[in-house]
């Protein structure tokens, strides 16, 4: 067995942050191609379909960006907590409860001027998501209960709670399905086709809406928070070296709670996209796994907004392009794309370090040779 020891300080940033993720991604796609081949379809054709489905026509591209929006929120959520070395697996539940926040604010305050309703609804989503993350955070900081365990549990609790509310408390009583009434149309967030309508372009329906801009703003917000404020500084200090943080008078308890609440709040913003932007009501199970996929997005994006944007976009492409493939290729089912996602998570998350030492030492050696030559 050989152990490759790489002097980390000599590895250029683009090797560990660009080359390694790309290699992992390529491997995941190659293995996926193998699956497609075994299923009896042509992998090259499948790739063409993915590209056409996600870029080929305006509506498809709008769908891609709609998915990207959700992945940005949940990816950022995971990343913020991770900077404090907390694994927030609870994005799914926090998003679910965040949706409740959006709906309750919007339906009860719909008499206010529309932009104010939007702002308050965004605030409500953040607050509810944060509140749902607060409990595991508190348990971690005061009782040492590991957030990985508690946030997973809280996903289940959120799901049960929402089902209860949707069945017994806030259901639209005019029908049987577990969803609420629709919000009044005046306060829906403007959709992409409404914008393009103003410009005189007529396109078919897509779920892309103004929330996309909120997601972009969130990327800036997280970058600013983590690297430019003293709160981010303290969170990172606690994450990197708790002992040293205590020495400097930085409270680990406080920062665990702040990091988790901001994380939960960001996950909650998914509710803005889904409820204020797309379905305008709460439906059972609307977070639909975005919370979990966000973990992979954050891992691929190396927990930095600059990485999370392309990673979220990639998953958007896979979601949208994937549905195109399943539509055109009868042998490929929807679950095939769940498997493809799984492979990406496997290669860029779990097997992240599979090739890293080899790749890094390869570049370090090459670059050193150049320097010496």
């Amino acid at each position, binding site marked *: 067995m050989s152990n490759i020891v790489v002097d980390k300080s000599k590895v250029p940033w683009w090797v560990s942050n660009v080359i390694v993720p790309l290699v992992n991604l390529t491997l995941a796609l190659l293995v996926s191609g193998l699956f497609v081949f075994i299923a009896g379809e042509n992998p090259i054709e499948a790739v063409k379909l993915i590209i056409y489905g996600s870029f080929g026509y305006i509506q498809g591209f709008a769908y891609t960006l709609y998915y990207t929006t959700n992945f940005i929120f949940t990816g950022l959520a995971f990343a913020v907590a991770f900077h404090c070395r907390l694994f927030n697996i609870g994005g799914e539940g926090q998003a679910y409860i965040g949706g409740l926040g959006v709906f309750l604010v919007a339906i009860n305050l719909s008499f206010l001027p529309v932009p104010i309703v939007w702002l308050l609804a965004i605030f409500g989503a953040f607050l509810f998501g944060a509140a749902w993350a607060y409990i595991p955070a508190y348990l971690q900081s005061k009782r040492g209960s590991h957030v990985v365990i508690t946030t997973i549990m809280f996903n289940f609790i959120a799901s049960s709670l929402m089902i209860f509310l949707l069945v017994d408390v806030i259901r639209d009583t005019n029908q049987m399905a577990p969803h609420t009434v629709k919000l009044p149309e005046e306060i829906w967030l403007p959709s992409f086709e409404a914008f393009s309508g103003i410009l005189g372009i007529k396109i078919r329906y897509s779920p892309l809406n103004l929330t996309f801009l909120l997601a972009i703003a969130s990327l800036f917000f997280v970058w600013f928070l983590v690297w430019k404020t003293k709160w981010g500084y*303290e969170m990172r*200090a606690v994450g990197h070296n708790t002992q040293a943080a205590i*020495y400097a008078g930085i409270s680990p308890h406080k920062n665990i709670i702040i990091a988790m609440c901001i994380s939960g709040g960001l996950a909650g913003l998914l509710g803005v996209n889904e409820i204020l932007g797309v379905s305008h009501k709460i439906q059972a199970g609307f977070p639909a796994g975005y919370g979990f996929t966000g973990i992979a997005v954050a891992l691929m994006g190396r927990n930095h907004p600059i990485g999370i944007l392309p990673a979220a976009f990639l998953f958007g492409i896979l979601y949208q392009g994937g549905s195109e493939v399943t539509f055109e290729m009868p042998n490929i089912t929807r679950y095939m794309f769940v498997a493809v996602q799984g492979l990406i998570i496997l290669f860029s998350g779990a097997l992240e370090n599979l090739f890293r030492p080899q790749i890094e030492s390869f570049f370090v050696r090459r670059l050193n040779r150049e320097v010496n030559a």
Partner: protein
Amino acid sequence: MVSPILELTNINKSFGHVQANKNINLKINKGTIHGIIGENGAGKSTLMSIVFGLYQANSGSIKINGKEINLRSPRDSIINGIGMVHQHFMLVENFTVLENIILGFEGETVFGEKLQKAKEDLEKLCQTYNFNIDLDATISDLSVGFRQRVEILKSLYRGAEILILDEPTGVLTPQEVDELFKILRSLKEEGKTIVLITHKLIEIMDLTSEVSVMRQGEMVGHTKTEDTSKEQLAEMMVGRSVLLRVDKKEIKKGESIFKVNNLSVKDDLDVTRVKDVNLEICSGEILGIAGVTGNGQTELLEALSGIRKVESGNIELFGEKISDQNNFLNPRMLKEKGLAHVPEDRQRMGLISDFKAHENLIFGYHDQEPYSKSAILNNKEITEYSNKVMQEYDVRPNSPNLITSNFSGGNQQKIILSRELNENPKVLLVGQPTRGVDIGAIEFIHQRLIDMRDKGAAILLASVELDEILSLSDRIIVMFDGKIVGEKENKNVTDRELGLLMAGVA
């Protein structure tokens, strides 16, 4: 003449710039208890780690029973009959004694007859040496003394003929120490060879038949224990090297500003580490705490700086009570009151090695103006300030954006020191300011501390380097086993006197 069971010739080992072992020669005879004594950082543990295959020597040879061997890993050493009991035990807490002992050597012994056989063998071993251990007990239920026995048993079961014990009594109660010594003596009677690494002179005199003394990476003497005395060993240990005296003005002692009354402090394992300590520091004075590592200095400094809870007693700063068992000010509040702290372990506490240098230069002061205004870090100010202090303190390379772990130990220490001294603290707590720091930086750091003293700061300096204590302090106290065992004015004290106090002899 029979060749010695273990013979080391010209062993050299360096870590970066620091040479931990220089041309070490050592002969250990079969069936003896051989002591290796020296101050902290003298290179004892490094040497024994080389013998146990944890480190590889840069040069030199190791012979066992006259045969040269190549030790690449602990496994090689175990095969050659060398066993080691570390300061920190390597046991799986939720396994039983038996499971821990066969771990890694289980082969086919996990089930059935073979396991039964292993158990019988172990029971025989226990009986021979009076171990008195229940093989089915879970490790987490055992006291420290028993855990140590499990480690010894583990080595014996693997066929150890030479048993190395690294500071075995550091964690034991006096009764447990007696029991351990009994076991070691019976091992010797059965023909095993024992190497005892320690800095406690009493143990050497009690137990060993031969002793080797190390100082600053070199072997300075071998002798039969009966031909020597504690005093002589202490002298060899501390050495009579010329002190690096620092230019120091006559003391201008001001009023007393920092006072500690009857302070007791416990460590994380709930063991009382600081016992009823009283001390007082005046402005313009450096009070040195001499002592071997692990005698309570760490916990004392942590309590004084607001990191560790006070068990009983209290601490006064400018006549105001800042800590007692009920409440204490956290480090940040203490900083605001003019108390700065250079922690003894810079990697663990003093800085965050993954942060950039400029981030570490404001660590603990990051929420003060001008470094941050209404929660937003002022990068321009921070960079300007970083450039300035890095120049002033000659931190190399002078690049505030470099990740801190890429700086050498000495330069990391300068980063911490510049940060803590920049605010002109009234009281400065300093632990091991020059550990792992090269000579050039040592002088620089010492000069800075003297400058602070001349400016009227009250400085508490804890160091295991006796030279450092002697060259910097105005007054010296010695800590042993959590207590202050002596206080001397620096004018009329010899290193020999201090050495004896540090070893708990006087």
